């Protein structure tokens, strides 16, 4: 037997007001859009957006409502501590607050596993604030990009590795929570382990990147930094230092 702390993907229900029947009827509409997907799926409730008084919230009714709709309530988070007793009494597990998670969901990341065109200013911010939370993210899929990544475009492989078969341009940005493999010329910015995975690596056929980063440690790639410019290379993290090696 092994007991480990791990994260899994869960549906999170963000509660905004205290009207339980309203919440349930809205959720029912959502569920009916994809009944197979939601059937018996675990669900977490999140109180960070709650505007009403949490002490007046009918947690038992919500739990019963969720069960009736075919969900399995597994826990609650981001409710005021004053409501903890109330929640325990109605059988809710209280999950540790995760400010990072809730702030991410509020700000609606601009892209999830897809190419998106966005202003360059935005991408600048992403560099220095490469999120370092959720160190143990579950690698689920693998993302393949087969079109050139153009100047000003961002591609992000969430919770996965990324393979790029085409060239990337100066002024582009590719990010992955896992490792990144680039078979075309690498000319833009490349950020592996975007959420703090320190074992992520970058592999490329022709290293001409402007900036390389792994798990938030970044480095500008001037000609003086490496003799491997334009050559196949692998980049890994050794302690706090990025190491560029020939492939």
């Amino acid at each position, binding site marked *: 037997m092994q007991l480990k702390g791990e994260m899994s993907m869960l549906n999170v229900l963000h509660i905004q007001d205290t009207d339980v029947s309203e919440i349930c009827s809205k959720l029912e509409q959502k569920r009916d859009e994809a009944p197979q997907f939601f059937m018996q799926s675990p669900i977490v409730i999140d109180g960070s957006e709650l505007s009403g008084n949490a002490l007046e919230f009918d947690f038992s009714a919500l739990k019963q409502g969720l069960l009736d709709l075919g969900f399995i309530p597994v826990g609650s988070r981001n409710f005021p501590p004053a409501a903890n007793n109330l929640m325990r009494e109605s059988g809710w597990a209280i999950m540790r607050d995760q400010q990072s998670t809730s702030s991410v969901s509020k700000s609606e990341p601009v892209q999830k596993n897809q190419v998106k065109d966005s202003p360059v200013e935005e991408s600048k911010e992403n560099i220095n604030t490469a999120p370092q939370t959720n160190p143990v993210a579950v690698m689920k899929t693998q993302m393949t990009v087969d*079109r050139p990544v153009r100047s000003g475009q961002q591609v992000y492989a969430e919770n996965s590795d990324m393979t790029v078969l085409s060239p990337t341009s100066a*002024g582009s940005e590719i990010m992955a929570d896992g490792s990144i493999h680039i078979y*075309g010329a690498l000319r833009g910015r490349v950020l592996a382990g975007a959420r703090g995975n320190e074992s992520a690596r970058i592999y490329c056929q022709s290293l001409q990147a402007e900036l390389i980063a792994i798990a938030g440690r970044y480095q500008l790639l001037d000609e003086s930094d490496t003799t491997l410019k334009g050559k196949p290379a692998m980049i890994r993290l050794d302690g706090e230092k990025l190491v560029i090696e020939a492939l």
Partner: protein
Amino acid sequence: MSKVIVVTSGKGGVGKTTSSAAFAAGLASKGHKTAVIDFDVGLRNLDLIMGVERRVVYDFVNVINGESTLKQALIKDKRVENLYILPASQTRDKDALNKEGVESVINELKADGFDYIVCDSPAGIEKGAFMALYFADEAIVVTNPEVSSVRDSDRILGILQSRSKVAEEGGTVKEHLLITRYSPERVEGGDMLSKEDIQEILSIPLLGVIPESGSVLQASNSGNPVIMDKESQAGQAYMDVVSRFLGEDIPLRFVESEEKKGFFKKLFG
């Protein structure tokens, strides 16, 4: 089946309008009913290059706003059969354009039996350029052999493949690279990017190379699309571009310096 082709570049002053005028005139001279639309609202130039500035009564924005019919605004070219020009408004700005209006004009042109609708995009990546490329099936990306132009073309290619209607529906806009103001002598001298360098960075198929030529300026100032100047290298290069676009296999011309040609001639006699 009508095709909408956007002539775009990102950067200004690289030859979008010159190329639009030449390309549209070339298509029409080959017997295809062609309309060329000026999307540069507020900085109207296409009418000058086409030599129809004194014949503009109604414009693109008037048609979008329902102030005139499309028929009233379209100017029929007097030199080339099958060629029509839809001028931009000079007194308005790019906000006068909207998706619905542009779409209705393009649909009306399609219904009128136009084979090709050439959209002359303004510079930049703002509303005017976005409107010009949104309905495109194919794109001609005009690039000069210098780094900033290539970078901007790269950017506009990204927008084309992520924000155009075809891209939104999951398709791909067909891309063509047109290099203008190319000077083989300066490429050999090392102070200009070569067509191979540009192609390596942009990785899209090359439609043609237009040599730097005094006849382009002369043609613009006299209001005759340079393609009509059959003597000039630029005119001939544009005609090759049109033929290639229509599916003919024609080798590139005017991409090697006279000096080099002379040298090889001497060598191989």
